[in-house]
């Protein structure tokens, strides 16, 4: 039990996917202009990341490993992720129009989120088991959501702040992201996995 907690803390804070491992930076910069969209994106990403880490683990252990096809993992995971996202979108659209309105436009975006593929590949590299894979994916997603929401809240403030003109717009966003990354470096050594 404490092992799973350790994985969660590790992925959320210490080895944060965005600020420490620099994965999933495109949505981090792209969807963080408004707090509301950032929340939608976080929810959708959490969902897809957890689900896809499970599916890619299953595909790897029950298809690729028995056949000795480990070298096909990248293309297989891309396939799995794309299908999971597409399937989720269809199911959500049918079953819950309200949820679809919140998540809908973000779901296809997540297909190309490198954090999703990154989690799948790292799960294999770290030789995580089934539950560990779920925890790892979920923790990565929570870490991503935490950082994205914090960052978008900051950017909403920055948008109305009096920024010197050379730093306006994305430039100050990048600097803020760098400072956040520095701050998250402070968690190094909290847990060691």
């Amino acid at each position, binding site marked *: 039990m404490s092992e799973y907690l350790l994985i969660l803390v590790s992925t959320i804070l210490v080895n944060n996917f965005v600020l420490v491992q620099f994965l999933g930076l495109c949505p981090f910069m792209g969807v963080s202009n408004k707090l509301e969209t950032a929340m939608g994106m976080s929810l959708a990403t959490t969902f897809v990341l957890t689900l896809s880490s499970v599916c890619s683990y299953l595909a790897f252990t029950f298809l690729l490993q028995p056949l000795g096809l480990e070298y*096909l993992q990248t293309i297989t995971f891309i396939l799995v992720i794309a299908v999971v996202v*597409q399937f989720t979108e*269809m199911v959500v659209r049918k079953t819950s129009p309200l949820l679809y309105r919140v998540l809908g436009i973000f779901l296809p975006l997540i297909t190309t989120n490198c954090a999703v593929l990154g989690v799948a590949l790292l799960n294999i590299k770290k030789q995580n088991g089934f539950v560990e894979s779920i925890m790892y994916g979920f923790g990565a997603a929570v870490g991503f959501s935490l950082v994205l929401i914090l960052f978008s809240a900051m950017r909403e403030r920055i948008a109305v702040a009096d920024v010197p003109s050379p730093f306006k717009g994305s430039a100050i966003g990048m600097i803020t992201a760098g400072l956040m990354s520095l701050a998250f470096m402070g968690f190094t050594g909290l847990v060691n996995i």
Partner: protein
Amino acid sequence: MSIALSVILTAIVALLGLALAFGTLLGFASVRFKVEGNPIVDEIDSILPQTQCGQCGHPGCRPYAEGIAAGEDINKCPPGGEATIQALADLLDVEATPLDAEHGEEKGKMVAVIREPECIGCTKCIQACPIDAILGSAKHMHTVIASECTGCDLCVEPCPVDCIDMVPVDQGISSWHWNSPKDMKIIATDKAASIDNEGAIH
């Protein structure tokens, strides 16, 4: 040689099988989880003039489009006039009927103008405007954003001091267009049809 070949074949078959399974899953899902949208409503809505005036008896153009899709008459839209009725008739493959006088008559394009010195700033017209084309705040003069106004008349009635006029839009160079022919009796059968109609009235 044969070992290498078998490895390649396994890889291809495994990926192909996976892709096939996923393809089947998605294909099944697209049938099973099909969303029944009604695309005809969108098409009807795009033909309607979007004045949101409510003269058809619906609270806006979209509800009327849904009404038409459900089988309502297509001749209840005065702002759109004959052109809209004709377009709807073509789209839905029904007979084009003349505009229903009960819902109002076709006028040229109008725009609301507030006589500003008389405005008392009651904000009633702002609340009435379906497309937020009136600007102003309580106890301050209001004005109409002419480029947004659809000429729907809805602000005229609530005004307590009657300071809103509906004026025809000036035809500048950018908004000028050919007048449609007054009399559609172009060929002999048109005349025959109109005679028949008159004969039916008597």
